């Protein structure tokens, strides 16, 4: 997995052309993907044509910002004319008539798109096992899950099939596969990246973001991806200095928060890895502060109370009439119900039915309760961030687990999200980076910060990459 700066340098100084670089990636793709199943749709012809054009641009001294770096796109982002499945039978043959804003930005900044990446169906999953197109495998050990829902993104970056990947994060879907595959993944502040062209899971939680082999790749990607988009009215009218500040982390001016509530019950190796990161920052002069997050566990059930109804609402458009899978029946009701029965997988049905249940008038109290719990969490984090600049926690409570191990136990599967959902409920940025290993499987650690401090988190990871070392057991 070559580091992004080195690859960029090789292209910029003419050691290799974007076309040659692309062929290197295609060679890895052809070798690894039959086993890993990270791609749903490969766009080799489009990529080669793009690379030929970027060869000329780079030769003439242009090519910013990506100079022909190779991207994979999670298959819930639209790219005009290329099939977009969301990992579902429902959209097996859907071809979008427009392109998502983050994808448009990648293209206009000379990024090459090698294909659409596998994912849990409609981004509903923590393990990468619920795709209609088959499970993705962990790039470090194919007997293990790659994490989800951006499963293909995590595996493709870790295997070196792509330089960078675009994922989406509603409850941990970027950070979880980043952690399980040993790469870096940023869930940006809610609104920092436009959601236009992203198939929604839960509108108040969804945010697109990058996965990369290193923090530099995240900074490079975010400089392009961020920014206001009139087509997404919640997008923020501000830009953060990602690349400009990537090497400016000063540990002596940063207060690092740690909370026993975020460590209790996690796997011992995951705990030791997290403590290793805290010790590292302390050894470099950061002040370590114990923060009080006593009721953080409430985030986990609250997430499901918020997400289920938003998801059920988002799924209403899939009716077999305008697009997607259709089963013909005598009446409109039966056509819709049977199309959905056949087109959706188990987890999707589970979530739609739970969401419908919570949305029923007689259950309105549930949703109100969730909003009150969400406010409580927001206040809890606001209080914590008065005392610290960054909170450190594990990304996932356990190292990667074996394929099939949790697939029939939804509550146990949902537990993988316990430490990632607080950032989505509160809209704050969170980054996962590889900080340790157990039995040759990676362990990610998460840094969370106040809203719009995404660049500080990226620079902290960069500092750890340069000055620190990974825990191993």
């Amino acid at each position, binding site marked *: 997995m070559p580091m992004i700066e080195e690859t960029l340098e090789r292209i910029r100084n003419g050691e290799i052309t974007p076309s040659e670089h692309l062929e290197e990636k295609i060679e890895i793709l052809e070798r690894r993907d039959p086993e890993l199943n990270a791609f749903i749709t490969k766009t080799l012809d489009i990529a080669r044509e793009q690379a030929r054009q970027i060869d000329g641009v780079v030769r003439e001294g242009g090519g910013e910002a990506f100079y022909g770096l190779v991207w994979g796109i999670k298959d819930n982002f639209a790219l*005009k004319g290329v099939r977009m499945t969301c990992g579902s039978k429902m959209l097996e043959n859907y*071809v979008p*008539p427009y392109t998502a804003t983050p994808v448009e930005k990648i293209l206009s900044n000379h990024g090459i798109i090698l294909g659409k990446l596998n994912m849990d169906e409609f981004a509903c999953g923590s393990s990468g096992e619920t795709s209609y197109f088959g499970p993705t495998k962990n790039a470090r050990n194919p007997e293990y899950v790659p994490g989800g829902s951006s499963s293909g993104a995590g595996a493709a970056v870790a295997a070196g099939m792509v330089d960078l990947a675009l994922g989406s994060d509603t409850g941990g879907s970027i950070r979880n596969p980043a952690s399980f595959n040993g790469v870096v993944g940023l869930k940006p502040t*809610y*609104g920092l990246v436009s959601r236009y062209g992203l198939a929604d899971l839960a509108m*108040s939680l969804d945010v697109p973001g990058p996965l990369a082999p290193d923090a530099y790749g995240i900074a490079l990607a975010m400089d392009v991806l961020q920014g206001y988009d*009139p087509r997404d*009215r*919640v*997008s*923020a*009218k*501000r830009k953060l200095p990602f690349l400009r500040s990537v090497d400016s982390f000063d540990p002596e001016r940063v207060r690092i928060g740690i909370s026993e509530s975020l460590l209790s019950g996690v796997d011992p190796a995951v705990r030791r890895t997290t403590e290793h990161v805290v010790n590292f920052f302390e050894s470099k002069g950061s002040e370590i502060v114990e923060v009080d997050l006593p*009721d953080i566990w*409430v985030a*986990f*059930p609250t997430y*499901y109370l918020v997400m289920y109804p938003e998801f*059920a609402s988002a799924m209403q458009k899939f*009716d077999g*009439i*305008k*697009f*997607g*899978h259709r089963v*013909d*029946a*005598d*009446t*409109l*009701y*039966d056509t*819709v*119900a*049977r199309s*959905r*029965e056949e087109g959706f997988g*188990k987890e999707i*049905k*589970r979530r*739609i*039915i739970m*969401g*419908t*249940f919570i949305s*029923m008038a007689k259950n309105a109290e*549930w949703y*109100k*309760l969730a*909003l*009150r*719990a*969400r*406010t*409580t969490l*927001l206040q809890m984090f606001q209080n914590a961030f008065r005392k610290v600049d960054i909170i450190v926690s594990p990304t996932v409570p356990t190292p990667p687990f074996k394929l099939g191990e949790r697939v029939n136990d*939804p*509550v146990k599967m*949902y537990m993988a999200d316990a430490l990632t959902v607080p950032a989505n409920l509160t*809209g704050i940025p969170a980054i996962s980076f590889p900080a340790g290993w157990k039995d040759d499987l990676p362990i990610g650690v998460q840094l969370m910060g106040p809203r719009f401090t995404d660049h500080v988190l990226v620079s902290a990871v960069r500092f750890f990459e340069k000055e620190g070392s990974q825990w191993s057991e």
Partner: protein
Amino acid sequence: MLTKEDLGHIAKIARIALTEEEMNELLPQFNGILQLLERVKQLPLAEATAIVMTENEGEFREDVAKTFEDYDLIVEQFPKKRGRYAEVPPNL
């Protein structure tokens, strides 16, 4: 606790046809999830329910219709069509 009857009713509203086998599998899972969700009630919570996640609160685009240039690409996606119209089965 949800009963099988409740589940059938909710699935009908959700427009998802469920087989008997799916009902039997989903029912205990739903009740497990509901037990988990019940935990939220154990906490003293803030009274406020307003969550503002954007700095552009209350901003709306101008209400002006725009022509989508690739209309044919939308029509191509209709699973069943007559000419340029999506075919919809009878409502009853």
